[in-house]
């Protein structure tokens, strides 16, 4: 289940938000060894201050956060323009009312492992379907993201293949890409049939709350 939280509500949902930052530290700092700032075991960057929309994957039985993703409009500050401009050819920018950026897609160790017979894990499927569903609510055409080859495979397996834009670059130990993901009813149907999800993954009350916070 995907629980939506506005960046502006982080005090109110500090338990969830802190768990998210802790998982992000484990994934980006410890596992992938990206150059990210970790303080007190929490990975927080400057884009967290720009009131993003967080998608939190919650285990319904344990009420625990297992993974998350972060959405920011490309008209405002975002990672592709402000941190990874080298991924796009000169003077090209992704800046559109209809494209948001997804970043810090991550989940706790083990949550990536698919169940037998599945191509991707439940948490992965929920996050990807959740991003597409939120995009539909906002009227987006695409979501743009910066990611590595592993994510390219995961996205393909989830029925949401990326269109790579610009040139791949080696950042740290990994090849890094910028890619677009389509947002449409058809794209959502593809994700659902590839992952076996049925119906909306969004937790209803959190959607209502975010729409009239």
């Amino acid at each position, binding site marked *: 289940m995907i629980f939506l939280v*506005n960046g*502006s*509500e982080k005090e109110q949902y500090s338990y969830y938000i802190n768990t998210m930052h802790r998982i992000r530290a484990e994934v980006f700092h410890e596992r992938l060894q990206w150059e990210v700032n970790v303080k007190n075991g929490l990975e927080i960057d400057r884009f967290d201050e*720009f*009131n*993003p*929309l967080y998608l939190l994957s919650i285990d319904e039985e344990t009420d625990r956060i297992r993974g998350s993703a972060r*959405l*920011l*409009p490309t*008209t*405002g*500050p975002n990672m592709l323009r402000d941190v990874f401009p080298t991924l796009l*050819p*000169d*003077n*090209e*920018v992704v800046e*559109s*009312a*209809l494209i*948001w950026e997804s970043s810090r897609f991550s989940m706790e160790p083990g949550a990536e492992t698919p169940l037998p017979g599945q191509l991707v894990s439940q948490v992965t499927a929920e996050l990807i379907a959740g991003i597409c569903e*939120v995009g539909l*609510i*906002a*009227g*987006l*055409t695409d979501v743009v993201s910066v990611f590595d080859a592993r994510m390219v495979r995961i996205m393909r397996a989830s029925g949401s293949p990326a269109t790579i834009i610009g040139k791949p670059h080696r950042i740290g130990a990994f090849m890094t890409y910028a890619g677009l993901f389509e947002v*449409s009813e058809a794209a959502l149907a593809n994700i659902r049939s590839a992952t076996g999800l049925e119906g909306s993954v969004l937790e209803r009350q959190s959607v*209502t709350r*975010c*729409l*009239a*916070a």
Partner: protein
Amino acid sequence: MYIKRLNTDLEEDALLTMIDRVDTIKKNNEIHKALIEMKDRYSLRNAAYMGYNMGSLTQAEPYASVTYSEEWVNQYRQKSYLDIDPVLRAVQKSILPIDWQSFDISNPKVRRFFNEAKDAGVGRNGISIPVRGRNRDSGIFSITTNAKDADWVQFKRQYMRDFQVLAVHFHQSVLIANNVIQPVFKLSTREVEVLYWTACGKTGEEAALILGISKRGVRFHVCNIMHKLNCTNVTHAVAKALYFNLIKPPK
């Protein structure tokens, strides 16, 4: 801009016409005219734009341009609704567009506010779209209709994308018309090369030979340049590019 459209009852180019109108706004009073034109083209009841964090422009109070009745604007000011308007508070908290129907009207204050708005002819249904700019500037773009609930759902499906796009264009035009930012023109390396050789007096064919690309390629770049610089012909584009230092002066 590339936009996938759903089926629409409106003339096909309502969005493109409006984008052109909004992008060529030079003076502040044209913002209001453009809102009215959009209201008519999309058969809206009202349209409103509010801007925040735009330097000295919004120091005293947010920037606002609205098509609401004078009655509602006066009432809004007199009762200091700027402080309690649930729509403004919600939009500043989230990046999601907000349908006014999603507000909890079991809260008496909220219910009274929306009832008064309805009585003042604001509109039966409304949606507010947050805009985030580059420099912590932000905007709130709202449109209302008198559509019945079922038609409203359909209307939103059809036009949400139009209004998301127009929200950003209005925001940008308010910034430019009030000199908060200068218009930014960005050309790719190839476009700069093509325009430079054109400024040197080379024909399209000559520029193609110099750059080792096809004549068609040159024409393609020239079209893009004119679009980006909002120019009607090449002379105009060269003049503008020189003025904004996009190309070096020809030898």
